[in-house]
């Protein structure tokens, strides 16, 4: 028997058929429902969007930090049977696309029929990510020195990028302003109706040099979910399915928890987002190159991560992302080469640890984004910037 190159490949076998959200607010903005209620609400909304009864959901996937585990969600929603429960181990936001990959694996493997990938996060009801939190791994090497927030930790890796490539700090402002311009078209975005210009960015207060206030993502309340099923079953759903043409998760050698740990990742990789490995596997599965993407949703917990990710994913050669960004290439309004974070991203739409980026990718493929890229057929989603491994998806129409 002749086996295909990748045995039983997941390539182009599954699809996202439903997306659901609650409203997004600033931290503390949702006081009338609990985070658990929001979690259930987003899942119900995603089932409705897919045009399936919520009782059809029999698989559950999420990633590090999600508090509401599958069997309890099953009980809360009154679902008859749970056949698949999966959590990406470690990696924080780096597991976001991985949760969709795991949902795709489960439905492709016949383990369950409709898998939901979900994330609920209310920083107003639980701890703040921008403040000190005990970190069992690596905390001893960071907290006693006042290294406590992801912004400070990724400022260290980005500072190194600036040093090696003379990366102009002005590029950060272009990212923040471009994504804000996208958010101004998106009524769901927390920063909707709040314009931002380069001067406001460059005079905003310093948080962790070189990152200023507007280089840092929001701290939000909200929840979101997507329904994944096989492409065969997707024929019966309400909207045009967003095909998952490729999904990958990977970590390079010696990275470990990287900037959220002791900063001893290999020197040649230090100034990256540890996404080179995932990029290689992703494009190989997709059978396409980064120049064939129509748009992208890049994990923008901090502006500097976007520059490093553009290089890791081969969209720009090393050291050239700043120029690419400053030429307006991420902008929808200016018809850039690769419009990115078209709903506003984690910087200006909401911070659901990357998950809202997946929903926006689906909207681009459906043709329903508020900053719709004309004839968008492919969209990249990247997950994670600092901690642990990384994951990514390529969706297509």
């Amino acid at each position, binding site marked *: 028997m002749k086996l295909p190159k990748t045995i039983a490949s997941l390539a182009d076998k599954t699809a996202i058929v439903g997306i659901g959200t609650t409203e997004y607010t600033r931290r503390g903005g949702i006081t009338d429902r609990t985070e658990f209620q929001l979690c259930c609400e987003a899942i119900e909304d995603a089932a409705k969007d897919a045009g399936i009864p919520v009782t059809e959901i029999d698989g559950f996937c999420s990633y590090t930090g999600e508090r509401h585990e599958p069997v309890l969600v099953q009980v809360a929603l009154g679902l008859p049977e749970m056949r698949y429960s999966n959590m990406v181990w470690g990696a924080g936001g780096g597991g976001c696309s991985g949760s969709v990959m795991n949902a795709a694996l489960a439905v492709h493997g016949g383990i369950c029929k409709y898998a939901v990938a979900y994330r609920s996060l209310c920083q107003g009801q639980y701890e703040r990510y921008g403040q000190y939190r005990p970190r069992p791994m690596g905390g001893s090497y960071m907290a006693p020195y*006042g290294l406590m927030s992801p912004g400070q930790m990724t400022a260290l890796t980005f500072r190194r990028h600036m040093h090696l490539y003379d990366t102009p700090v002005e590029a950060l402002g272009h990212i923040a302003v471009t994504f804000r311009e996208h958010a101004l078209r998106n009524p769901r975005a927390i920063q909707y109706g709040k314009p931002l210009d380069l001067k406001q960015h460059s005079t905003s207060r310093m948080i962790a040099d070189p990152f200023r206030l507007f280089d840092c993502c929001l701290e939000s309340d909200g929840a979101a979910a997507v329904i994944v099923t096989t492409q065969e079953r997707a024929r019966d759903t309400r909207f045009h399915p967003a095909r998952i043409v490729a999904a990958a998760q990977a970590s390079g050698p010696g990275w470990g928890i990287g900037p959220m740990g002791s900063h001893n990742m290999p020197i040649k990789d230090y100034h990256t987002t540890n996404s080179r490995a995932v990029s290689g596997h992703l494009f190989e599965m997709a059978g396409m190159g980064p120049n064939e993407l129509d748009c992208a949703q890049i994990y923008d917990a901090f502006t500097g991560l976007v520059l490093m990710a553009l290089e890791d994913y081969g969209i720009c050669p090393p050291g050239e992302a700043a120029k690419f960004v400053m030429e307006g290439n991420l902008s929808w309004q200016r018809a850039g080469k690769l419009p990115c974070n078209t709903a506003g991203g984690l910087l200006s739409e909401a911070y659901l640890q990357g998950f809202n980026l997946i929903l926006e990718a689906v909207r681009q493929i459906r043709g329903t984004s508020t900053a719709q890229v004309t004839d968008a057929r492919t969209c990249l989603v990247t997950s994670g910037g600092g901690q642990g491994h990384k994951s990514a998806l390529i969706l297509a129409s």
Partner: protein
Amino acid sequence: MTYLPQDLPLPEPSPDDQPYWDACDQRELRIQRCAKCTRFRHPPTPICPSCRSPKACWTQVSGNGTVFSYTIAHFATHPVLKDALPYNVAVVLLDDADDVRIISNVIDIAPEKMAIGLRVSLVWQPLRNGGYLPRFSGRDHSLATVTTP
């Protein structure tokens, strides 16, 4: 006077890195090193990632190094840091421990003078539990003598 307030969270040694912190308490910077292939590694890990030997020793190093990266914190991520702003956090590449880096602070340099490539040397500062924390001094070094890592 320590560089940052002594009320900050203390190191929490685990079975895998207790010897590192025990050495710090004696004001000795000892980096884990493979007893077989002699490669340094940090933070401590259970076996050598180069040769997989579980046998390790803890080798005292000079404490001289170079700033590999840094940030200046202007925002208090912990209540006790409110009066310590702005402060630096530096990643220091040690001179004599392969590519091992130590996260620390440079205790005697103005924020605008911080730079990648700055030469630094080890100093010890007391913790409130009687232990000591390795920090670094940039004094008596000038940027003119920098070798950029």
